[in-house]
């Protein structure tokens, strides 16, 4: 489903070049559960952003669902992002003036989903993440764990093919971190591809496939049989 071929990403800062991704090739199938590990600055976020179409490779090829997306226009990339990808961020990124329901509905508003359908999907998903009673709370009235669950609900409401989570538990205590991970893994059970960036080895061990990065390269790619 996701194929990267000899992808490079070079940032130019002043006259210095930072090789954030150095010849990365990767093949991910639908429904995989991947933990992405590596020291800070090794290129994990950059890789995730390119997979999520938020960033473009400096060179190389990216094929998503059989389609070469490297050369697509801003408009088409935005549509693919909307329909196939769900993002979960370390800092949640909820819109502060919108309540939980409205935040969750945002991708559907952007996609032009009819109001009745939006409502139905929001209430179904609020139930799934256990926040039905918090539907009308604004982000500043929610705990960190609850915020991240709203963010996950928002990422899944368009029923994406892949969920990309960049250190989703990095800002949470271990109990809420576990809740969040449980929800993400439940989604993975429904055949949604899940990529989680993490520094936590215990979390990484839960994934079937583990990628380790150093200096913009993937230096190990291990697959274990079963999820713990």
């Amino acid at each position, binding site marked *: 489903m996701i194929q990267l071929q000899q992808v490079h990403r070079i940032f130019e800062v002043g006259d210095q070049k930072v090789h954030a991704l150095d010849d990365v090739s990767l093949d991910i199938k639908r429904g995989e559960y991947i933990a992405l590990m590596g020291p800070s600055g090794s290129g994990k976020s950059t890789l995730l*952003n390119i997979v*999520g179409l*938020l*960033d473009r490779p400096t060179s190389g090829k990216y094929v998503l669902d059989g389609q070469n997306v490297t050369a697509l226009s*801003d*408009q088409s990339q*935005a*549509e693919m*992002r*909307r*329909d196939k990808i769900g*993002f979960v*961020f370390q*800092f949640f*990124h909820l*819109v*502060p*003036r*919108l309540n939980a329901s*409205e935040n969750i509905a*945002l*991708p559907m*508003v*952007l*996609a*032009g989903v009819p109001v009745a359908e939006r409502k139905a999907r929001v209430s179904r998903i609020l139930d799934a993440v256990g926040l039905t009673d918090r539907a009308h709370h604004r982000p500043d009235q929610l705990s960190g764990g609850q915020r991240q669950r709203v963010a996950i609900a*928002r990422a899944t409401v*368009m029923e994406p093919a892949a969920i990309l989570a960049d250190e989703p538990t990095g800002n949470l205590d271990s109990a809420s971190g576990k809740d969040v991970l449980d929800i993400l893994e439940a989604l993975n059970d429904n055949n949604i591809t899940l990529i989680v960036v993490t520094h936590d080895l215990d979390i990484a061990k839960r994934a079937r496939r583990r990628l380790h990065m150093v200096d913009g390269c993937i230096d190990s790619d291990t697959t274990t049989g079963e999820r713990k």
Partner: protein
Amino acid sequence: MSTIDILGFALKSLRGYALRTGLMLLAMAIGVAAVVVLTSLGEGARRFVVAEFASLGTHLLIVLPGRSETTGGPPLLLGETPRDLTIDDAVALNRSRAVRRIAPITVGSARVSYRRRDRESIIIGSTREFLDVRHLTMGQGRFLPEADPRRASPVCVLGAKIRQELFGGDKALGQWVRLGDRRFRVIGVLASEGRTIGIDVEEIVVVPVASALALFDTASLFRILVEARTREAIPRAQKDIVDIVRSRHDGEDDITVITQDAVLSTFDNVLRALTLTVAGIAAISLAVAGILIMNVMLVAVSQRTSEIGLLKALGASGRRILVLFVTEAGALSLIGAVLGLVIGKIGGWIVGRLYPALSVSTPWWAIVAALAVALGTGLLFSMLPARRAARLDPVQALSRR
């Protein structure tokens, strides 16, 4: 994304930053209100003047001694002394078939007295026709009798206020008053009808034109009012007047004929230009409001950088972001403009109550223009911030918290 959703999103963001939104609404509203109030006043003044002129009768021509250099206006500061315009000249104008009636006029001021009471007053010398040409009405008695304008006769008609001051509650008709060093018998009193352009008819004394000329010891009329038979006859009458006077003045064109229409349209144009100027100045405040909107939107874009990054991550294209921000500014301008219209209307109404003579009315074009300029500046000045938002790199935008 549907139009309703775009509007809903914009309105929610505006509500989310209440203070900022309130200040921008205020700026826009003040600008629009200024345009509305000022144009209403200008338009009111224009209508007032036009109505006053129309009340004088529209087939009126005014003949003045002396040649005007510019067409239309009366001779103001002219070097040469023109030939006198005499009663005989006036009477001769009756020869034109385009002329219905004429009223020769001479104006001066003199002391009016009755027994112990006296005051200074404007004395108008004219004929019976003056009553009709100026659309005056009588309060008591009769106006000047039908008579040969060349003959003096010691009768006079008083303005209502003059009568009140000289006679108080006493009977005025039939009494003799003194004008300068001559005696005149009061034969009528004008009805009080307030001001009309030029003179207050309550404070005049009207005497036969020949008597007035004798009183002021002159042979020259102040002007001759000529009423044409019809509106269409005005050009014809104007030409006849010029021809007749020229033949009487040894072939010299030494008079000026102005038509009511010309005066009216001059005033109309001047006042309309004035209104437009004032409206234009007020519109500058709208431009200022537009620049304010631009600045505040720029701040909004940098405040909401991470939100913009998020929207992009959720599948909004650069174009969509642009539309969202422009809609926000547009909604802001429009709401501000409507608010301004309401404030302006209330302001106009208050002015209307204070000065009832000024029929304050907002011309429709001012409302349309104010709304259009408000919306236009709002949209125009939001383009720069909105484009900046649209071009933001989502990865960097998201890394800002």
